[in-house]
Structure formats: structure tokens, C-alpha cells
């Protein structure tokens, strides 16, 4: 039951490993932030697989952006709720 091509998860892990030197040179706190970015990208592996893009890292970057944007929207909502409660 072999596959010819690696799965999205395998590609993701390879890409993440390729940034090991970059990660190592970052400050500890930045390393955590980078890990968060990769973790958020991982939420969309199914979609990345289905996209079958020739350059998968583009899809992983877009996934990171997507999760970041969700955070922005969520925080904007919280802020608006907070501001609307101000007298």
C-alpha cells in the first residue's frame, strides 16, 4: 500500500524540519511564537492535501495567515464589545 508521493503531513514535517537552523538561532520566546505559527498551519493539513499545490509551503504560509486573521477578527470583536460597553 505504498504511496508515490509523501502525504501533506509528511511534507509539513519536512518543511518544519528545514527551518530547524532558523528556529535554533531565534530567541526562546520567538521560538515559541514560531512553533505556534507552525501549529496553526497544521490545522489545515486536510485542505493542503486536497489543494495538491506544487509548492506546498505556500499553502502552509496561507494557513498560518488564515489562523492569524481569525485571531485578529476575534480580538476585534472582543474590542468592539468592550468599547460598546463603555459609557
Amino acid at each position, binding site marked *: *500500500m505504498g504511496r508515490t508521493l509523501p*502525504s501533506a503531513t509528511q511534507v509539513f514535517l519536512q518543511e518544519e524540519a528545514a527551518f530547524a537552523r532558523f528556529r535554533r538561532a531565534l530567541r526562546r520566546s520567538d521560538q515559541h511564537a514560531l512553533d505556534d505559527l507552525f501549529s496553526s498551519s497544521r490545522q489545515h493539513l486536510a485542505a493542503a492535501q486536497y489543494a495538491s499545490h*506544487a509548492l506546498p509551503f505556500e499553502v502552509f504560509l496561507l494557513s498560518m495567515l488564515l489562523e492569524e486573521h481569525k485571531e485578529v477578527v476575534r480580538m476585534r470583536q472582543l474590542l468592539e464589545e468592550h468599547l460598546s460597553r463603555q459609557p
Partner: protein
Amino acid sequence: MNTILTGWLLDVYPNETNLTLWVIGDDGQRHRLVQDFTARLYAAGPAARLRQLWQWLSGQPVPVHLARTQRRDVFHEQSAPTAAEASAAAGRDGTDAPQLVTVLAVHILQPARLEELFRSMLTAFPDLTYYDADISLALRHAAAFDVFPLARCRLELRGQKVVSLLPLSSPWEIEPEPVPLRILTLEPDTDPGHAEPQALVVSHDRVRYRLPLHDRTQLLVSLAAELRRHDPDLIMTAWGDTWLLPFLLQASRERGLPLPLNRDESQPVLERKEHIYFSYGQIVYRGRQVQLRGRWHLDCHNAVLWNDYALQGVLEMARVTRQSAQDAARLSPGTGISSMQFVTALQHDILIPWHKQQAETPKTAMDLLRSDMGGMVYQPTVGLHRDVAGIDFVSMYPGIMVRFNISPEVPRAGKDPSTSSGQRLEPAPGEPGIIPLTLAPLLNKRLSLKSALLTLNRHDCRRPLYQALASAHKWLLVTCFGYLGYKNARFGRIEAHEAVTAYGREALLRAKEAAEDLDYEILHMYVDGLWVQKAGCKSPPDFEALLADITARTGLPISLDGIYRWVVFLPSRVNSRVPVPNRYFGVFQDGSIKVRGIEARRHDTAPFIAETQMAILEILAHAEDADALREVLPQAQAFARRQLGKLRSGQVPVEKLLVSQKLSRELGEYSTPSPAARAVRQLQVAGKSVRPGQRVRFLFTLGKPGVCAWDVPRPPDPHSIDLPRYRTLFERAVDTVLTPIQQSVNGGVDNECLYLFPPDRSLPVFGSSSSITRPVR
């Protein structure tokens, strides 16, 4: 004068000149009959070589009847394509309809000599293409007369010779008529791998007694008398293949006392060696086999999936795959599905290639990227969710093959289903291919059983039978998809395999779109199932519109697996922000529990830990809904603490701490021996052998080598047990189920979560996927 006999077909095997049949007659007698039968194989190649083969065969000692004829070869276009053919095929993106090939049909009049003749043919004419050469006689007979093991038959006899054979039942009946099988059970009083058995426990009907093993002569005399008196149709054993029957046969030879294990005493007992193979990325060990003639021998420890479906499942496997019951019990579902395809091929005059020589159709890199994918596996939304519907496509992949006519020989329209968004998904045009032809009756039977199970009362006595039958079918249907992409499968073809997954992805995405159009939230999707939630939807009728919409959009049946009072999707143990697809647990509205991927489901979890985890879930299942979890949580926590107390104070029986792991390779191949390998080394020192694929049971112990194999002759010292290690494993299993519940009860805020057993604080505890609790500078 001819006589008529009705009864059940028990066994079919070759004798020197024709076939022997055993029939359980309606008169209660066991009839030994013979039947003339011609086995056929085909050869194809250049006309001149076929003429030479004809002449050669005419001079052989095996009597044959020869004829030139035409037959369908589904891979004819693909066998050994030239470069021009290959590029033309790439342009067409598919296969052509099967073409007729001219073949030399060799009818072998003494079927038992087929193998011998074929071997000589291969040596003399290795360049020819052969078909139907290695199909078992039992399958050929089943295909020719449309019969199967335990088929109800009407036989016309002249003396002991069968003149005609007519099936009176079909393997597709939901409830086969019960067969009056006489069963004798033989089991040693202890696992021979663990200790030397002292007695043999014999039981049949309501009789049960012990025969001491030390007096071999007395044992053989008593057993022979029992076999003759009770004359069983089926000998059920424990470790019969690997220990008991070889032991009895050797004792019988040494003492010169015949033991009528075979009902047909003119035939030898059939012994097959152990073998090891890879399947689905796992190493599998099949012990040696001892098969009987005229009656069956089944060893419950050497039967595939015995724990899943037991004897009824084995009989059903034999019925639908038409292999002998002794083979059906011991062979994988893959062999079962191949057998079914062979019978379809034989009955439809389709050639079965002896060696498939078909290569993958050339395709572009982009096409490969788009097609080389499996099913869609999403990352679930981690955490506890309430009132969640689990909905599943019913036998999705086999359903796709049947509904959309996916088969190696059926030309695909060359259309990717994902490009037909919004349109109806249509089956490939033309006659149904060999795969849909084979699967349709099996799928229909499974669907009928499933719908019967839905309507049957919970305590109905037919329920376990139906469940065993459905479970046997499930494995055949699961494997069927894998075999479509397996290069050695006779009717496999990677493009057909890829087409199935393409339809699967399209169906799942259409289901997602249907759910989202109706305002459901998708919590998780896994190949053929979805977990959806919508405020106010709590009972089955609330989901009917969704199910109907999905069926309309996909053309595939979908059903409600159940509604969970609550379900927890778990994150990865390494990184709590990363969800894991198939790791969850939940409680349905009827109080039943479903778990996947957690410790209780794993084979290498000590029974004490697995039982504790399940007991905690049972306590949690008492909560009527997710809100009531707050009330039962303290009980569950108290239970976990009591269990931990038992573990620490040594009150847990040693057997409950046994860990069972599979040896994944030969001992010499380990660079760092796993605990299982270290345990096997201890067994080797004690003179016992364990082969790759076999399980080894051991305890974790203090100091080196850290394990103690259970099956060494010396019992383990209870004081050497590595309690801290068991405690870690115990706490991990308890936290898997209790932490998400605690988080939910505490309002889903992680940093307020009170761990029952706090994890190592040197590792930061990350927030859930929707909240980041760590300060980011």
C-alpha cells in the same frame, strides 16, 4: 438407479481421479461422495507456440482435452505495452473495454494433477501467458455449481457418484438455515506457550471431561474412541494448529496408534508451515496449520479476526467467499475478496491472469499530485462538545465502486469528480465491471443486516448473529478497496483505486457543504464520517433533512451513527495545540460509549489501566447530559484515586499489569532493543522462540533489563515490578479522559484546570487551539 439426496455440503477436495464431497444429509448421515470434475487453465501467446504446446500436451501422462477458444482478458491492452501504446494510453487517460484473446483451453480430467501439469508446462513454455492456473479446486467447484461451504444442495446420485448437483440456498440469504453441525472441542488446560499443559479438556454437547496428557497411550485410545463415537463435523481447538494437533499426531506416530482426526482416513492430515508477512504496514505472523479432510479443524488462536466475529463470522466468511471453512478461518480478508473476484471471473468467463504484468499508466507530475491522495482526514476541533451527531456514509468505498461502476476494466470517462461541482455524480457508462459485480450482493447483504439491526429489539437473540455476519462483511469490504490498489492483486489497478478516493473526497466535501448550507458546525471529518452540531438539534428527526440532502448531492447512502450527549476530541500528547484525527471518546444518547485511539483501545495497555479508563468512562456515562458531568466528575476522580491506591499498595494481580507487544522484526535486527525484544531475549534463553509478528507478554521491572517476560518458567518476583513506571502510564490514561472533562466543568479555561495528576511542570501547558495563554513577547 439414481437416488436423490438433500443436505449441506461440508467439504470438497481432490482425490486421485476426481473430487471427494462430504455432505451432511437430511437423514443425519454424513455421506462421502465422489464427483467427476474437469479443471481448466488457459495459455495465450503466438499461434506457433500454442501449436507446439498442443503437441507437447498431447504427449503428457496427464489426460487432457484441448481446444482453441476466445476469452476476455481485462488487462489485455495493458499487458507489456510498447512505448507507442503507452503514450496513446496516457492520452486516453483510462482503460479500454476488455478484448477477446485467442487462448488454448486445457481441460485437465484428473483435477488433482493440475498443479503437476502446470509446473511442467511452465518449465517447457515459460514464454506463454497463463490464465486460471492457480485457482484452488474448491473455488473452481464452487463457481461451476454455484455452491459454497454449508450450501443446501440437492444431489442426484448413482451409487456414491454425484450425477448432478443443484444448490438450494444462496450465500446472500440474510438468515441461513441452521446446519446440524456436530462440534467437538479440544483444549489444553493451559496456554502451551506459557507452561506445560497437564491435561486435555474434551467437550461436546453437555459433556465435558479431562484426559491426562502424561499417559499418551491412554490419551490416544480415549480420544480415538471419542472421535469414532461422536464423529464430529468440526473439531474446535485452542492452540490446535500450533501445539495440540502436532503433539497428538506425533504421539500417534510414536506409539503406532492410529488417531482418526481425519474423517476420510484414506487422506493424510494437511500440515502447512508458519509464515510471516507485511500487511497495512504491520508485520503479521500466521502460525503453522493443521487441516483435516472430511471434517474441519478450527483453532480459535490461529483464526483471523476470531475475536471480532467468532465461529458464525468464520462460517459467513466461508459462505460468501466460497473458500473452505478451514481456509476462510485462517486466511486474510484480502484472500477472501480475491476468492470472490475469482468466482465472479470464472462465472463470467473472464480470464484470471496467473501473473499480472500490468504497469501504471504514464501520467504528468501534476496529474500524479492530484490523484495520489487518500481519503480526507481533518483535524478536529479539540475539546468537549455537546449534542453532536456522528454521521457516516454506509460502506463508503465499496458503495462508490458499485454505484459509480469502478473496476479495472471499465473505461473511466477521464473526468475528475471534483470538477463536476454541483452536477450529479454519474456512474461510468457500460456494463458493470468485475468489481461492482462481485461487491454488489455482499454490499446489499450488509445493508440489509444493518437495517435489520436498527429495527431489532436490543435483546433479540438474532442480534449477535447479525452483528457477527456484518462484522465479517466489513473486513471483506474494507480490504476490497486496498486490493484495488495492490500491485499483486489479480484485479487491482491503481487508477481505479485512485478513482475511488477521488469520489470519496468529493462525497465528503459535498456532505460538508450540505451541512454548512444548513447552518451546522463541522467539528470533525474523517474519510467517510462527519461530526456535526447545531443549536437545538438533539434528536434523530432533527438530522433527517441533512441526511436526505447529503444523499441527494452525493448519490450515496448516509446514516446517523448516533447522537452523542458529549464527545471529546483530543489533542496530540506531544503538542496540545495540535489536534489528532482519530483520538476521541464520547457517550451516545443511549448511554453507550465510543472510544478511538485512547489507551483502552490499544493492545499494549496493561489490562488494569485499560479497565480503569473504561470504568471512569462508564461513571461519566451516567451523566444525562454534558451539564451533569459536574455531578459525576467527583465520583470518577475518587474512583481513579482508589485505583491508584490499589496499584501503589500492590493489590493489583500481576496478570493485570501484563503488557503485550508485537515483535516487529527479527531479534538481531534491533539496534536498540525495544521492551518486547528484551522480553523475547529472555524467552530465547529459556528455550522458547518468538517470531516477528507474534505478541510477547511481559511486565515492566526495576533495574536492567527493565522487563520480565511472562512466559519464562520462573514466576516474576512481585517486588521487582516497576511501580513508578506503571504509575506514570496509569496517570497518563486517567488524565486522557478526565482532563478534558475537568477543563469543560471549569469553563474551558486551561490555566484554571486542576489536574488530578499534575503533568511534569517543566513542560509548558499550552492553551486550547482557540486561545493562547502564554505571553508572547
